[in-house]
């Protein structure tokens, strides 16, 4: 087999001819790799847009009192920042990008189960995003509800909320179709010998995520449709002036949106579980425990939504019950963290760029997770609810968790996706800037929140000034880190050296196909007869070759 590929290397999926010309070869392609890259460029553009909003929010809050914007504009800024980041960047996020590009190859499949449906989900995301952006300019003012669209303000405000929530509904539909596709793919298209317990942990995490996408997203779908119905059809299920109960909106919203935070972070944990063994050259510690903890996070994630509503007038009994249940989420999460650290123990650790992102994920997500436990504690939450402590907490989990894992994943699979290599020294510098900037931006918000700084406030008392000042300075460092990172990746994409098929010595199936992969992933269907993180072959090969840098040797040939 290896001889055959050496004789005539199959064309990569980039070079393969398409039925459509130009850009249409991408936006009408049903190839999972092209769709994965489409998603990547789409959501990263949304990220840069959302990041600019975040930059403006921080700029406004650098000093007490109004600086650059009117208070109403500020309300719109944090609403748009939240909606774009949550619905258009983080929720499609990793499943849409790497679930599409990497998952089928990791399972030894040619494509996902329903390729055309897969393309439809990308289109739904794009159309949903256009609808959301259109909603900004079609109301009498910019949306100012916050990303949660709480009732009854969502029907009272004159901003074009119905259109915005319809866009979010379309994006949700896209998410459902993606989940449906991945569950079917995992059940039906695993290669011969790839049992459930030989699946890489990234595949496990995508599988668990897909279940949440299927079971939670429809609930928010109907909730958003009800918001539209309230506005136009005169029904009143949430609006108290029309006999509805606004708390029911919050229940329905969080029944989806709490599990949705696991849509965000489970795939991130999957990436970290794949990166760490590769750079320790050691089987992951507690494979089954990590796999099952993904499933149990997905499950427990359903039982805890009420902790977003501790101060909203829920029954005392419910507050106690939800607080109690919330603590259980910490258990499977801790299992993962302990297993990752145990994998590091006595591993031959290589601090390559993806590994730095993975390690900082563990550090940042632990902070985010532990502060989450604090917020889940009923009596403490009464003090901290709606303060900037909450803002810091979810930025540590979503950005420190999801964001760092996504960037880590991009650095990890970049050579596979593009067949090129970025400059690793610069990648490490970018990581350092990002890491320092991130902590400088968000850590002061913990302290300010503890002292009572409310979230979503335009102005604040002078005693909070130092926190906000340093946080804004931090945001500049963070953004320069991000821009530097993207610049480096872009440079790698255009000018980078040709990458090896397996530059990191990874053991999962995607490293056994050429970089970039051919249109038909596997010329012969792979047969799997070993565990996903079995590095014995790779280590044997490495030890037998005298120079470890066979990358250079190959380049010279």
């Amino acid at each position, binding site marked *: 087999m290896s001889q055959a590929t050496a004789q005539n290397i199959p064309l990569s999926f980039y070079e393969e001819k398409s039925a459509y010309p130009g850009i249409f070869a991408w936006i009408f392609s049903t190839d999972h790799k092209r769709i994965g890259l489409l998603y990547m460029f789409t959501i990263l553009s949304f990220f840069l847009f959302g990041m600019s909003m975040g930059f403006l929010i921080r700029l406004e809050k650098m000093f007490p009192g109004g600086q650059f914007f009117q208070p109403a504009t500020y309300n719109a800024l944090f609403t748009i920042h939240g909606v774009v980041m949550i619905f258009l960047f983080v929720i499609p996020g990793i499943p849409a990008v790497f679930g599409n590009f990497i998952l089928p190859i990791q399972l030894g499949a040619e494509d996902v189960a329903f390729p055309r449906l897969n393309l439809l989900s990308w289109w739904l995301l794009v159309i949903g995003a256009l609808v959301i952006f259109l909603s900004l300019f079609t109301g009498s003012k910019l949306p100012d509800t916050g990303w949660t669209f709480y009732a009854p303000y969502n029907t009272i405000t004159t901003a074009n909320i119905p259109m915005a929530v319809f866009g979010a509904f379309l994006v949700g539909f896209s998410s459902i179709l993606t989940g449906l596709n991945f569950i079917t793919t995992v059940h039906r298209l695993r290669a011969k010998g790839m049992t459930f317990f030989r699946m890489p942990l990234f595949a496990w995490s995508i599988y668990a995520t897909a279940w949440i996408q299927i079971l939670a997203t*429809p609930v928010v779908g109907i*909730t958003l449709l009800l918001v539209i119905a309230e506005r136009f059809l*005169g029904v009143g299920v949430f609006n108290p002036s029309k006999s509805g*109960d606004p708390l029911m909106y919050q229940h329905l919203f969080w029944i989806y949106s709490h599990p949705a935070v696991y849509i965000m972070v489970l795939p991130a944990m999957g990436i970290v579980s794949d990166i760490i063994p590769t750079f320790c050259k050691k089987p992951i510690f507690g494979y089954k425990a990590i796999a099952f903890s993904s499933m149990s996070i997905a499950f427990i994630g359903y039982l805890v939504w009420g902790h977003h509503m501790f101060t909203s007038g829920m029954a005392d009994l419910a507050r106690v019950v939800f607080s109690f249940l919330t603590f259980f989420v910490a258990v499977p999460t801790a299992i993962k963290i302990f297993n990752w650290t145990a994998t590091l123990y006595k591993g031959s650790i290589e601090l390559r760029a993806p590994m730095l992102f993975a390690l900082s994920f563990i550090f940042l997500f632990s902070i985010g997770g532990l502060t989450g436990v604090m917020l889940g504690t009923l009596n403490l939450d009464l003090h901290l609810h709606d303060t900037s402590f909450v803002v810091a907490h979810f930025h540590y989990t979503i950005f420190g968790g999801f964001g760092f894992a996504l960037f880590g994943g991009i650095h990890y699979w970049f050579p596979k996706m593009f067949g090129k290599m970025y400059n690793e020294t610069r990648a490490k510098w970018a990581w350092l800037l990002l890491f320092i900037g991130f902590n400088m931006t968000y850590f002061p918000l913990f302290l300010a929140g503890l002292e009572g700084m409310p979230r979503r406030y335009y102005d604040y008392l002078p005693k909070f000034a130092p926190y906000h000042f340093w946080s804004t300075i931090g945001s500049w460092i963070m953004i320069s880190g991000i821009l530097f990172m993207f610049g480096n990746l872009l440079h790698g994409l255009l000018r980078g050296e040709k990458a090896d098929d397996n530059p990191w010595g990874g053991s999962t199936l995607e490293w056994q196909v050429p970089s970039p992969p051919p249109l038909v992933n596997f010329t012969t269907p792979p047969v799997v007869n070993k565990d996903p993180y079995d590095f014995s072959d790779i280590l044997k090969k490495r030890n037998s070759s005298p120079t470890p840098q066979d990358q250079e040797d190959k380049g010279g040939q």
Partner: protein
Amino acid sequence: MSAHAAELAVHEHKDYTGAKIGMWMFLFTEVLLFGGLFLLYAVYRAEYPQGFHQGGLHLDVFLGAINTIILLTSSLTMALSIAAIQRGQKGLAIFFLSFTILCGATFMVNKYFEWSKKIHHKIYPGSEALAKYVDNMVEEGKVPPQQKSGVLLFFSLYYLMTGLHGLHVLVGMIAMAFILRKLLKQPFVHHRWNPFQKQELQGCRLVLEDPNGQTIWKSETFDETVKHVDVEFQYYPAPKHVHPDDYVALENTGLYWHLVDLIWIFLFPLFYLIS
């Protein structure tokens, strides 16, 4: 080596179990979509039992029961249509499927009359006449004042849930019409492939074999003058012009239709039978 690869590429992968898993997943999302509304119903009904009771008095049990029977019957004929196509009885399948569509249409006509009668009497969400009417109920002592919201919520949910359900009936009918058209069309199957790479083809030839390995047809050997190869052929599948594609599509449409029926099985007692 390369001939082997080409052979594998041509081997077409049709996974009917996979298609069914996908369809069930989709049904689950539908269940949860309605689940949100059922949750609202559950909460509000527990809070306003008398209000819901008064609202329920305004629904026509007879019409509701007739619609239930229509939907149950349509589910039967849908199932029979699939049973028929599994046995290769295509004509029968087409008959049952058309009957199912007809049932769906009848259901919608009934629904139309039911809704228009109510809207004619100004019973719809947001109507001022309805609000006044409910106020009268309170004055007459039919509904305790704190249960007043229940009547309004009842009608909101009634319109939302039966409306969304009606929308699903329509979608189901459209899907069935598509399948019907597919079944009525000339039943040949048409395939196209061009998965080959030039290098792989060198010195190979294309062979068509029957299941016993007998060669039916073979092409010339490809040499370097061949630029690329497109394979395209049509055939009539046995038995009796029914292709497996037909029944997986029919079966999935059937699953959707049964789900519409399932939801109605719950809507009927929850709205019509609580007075």
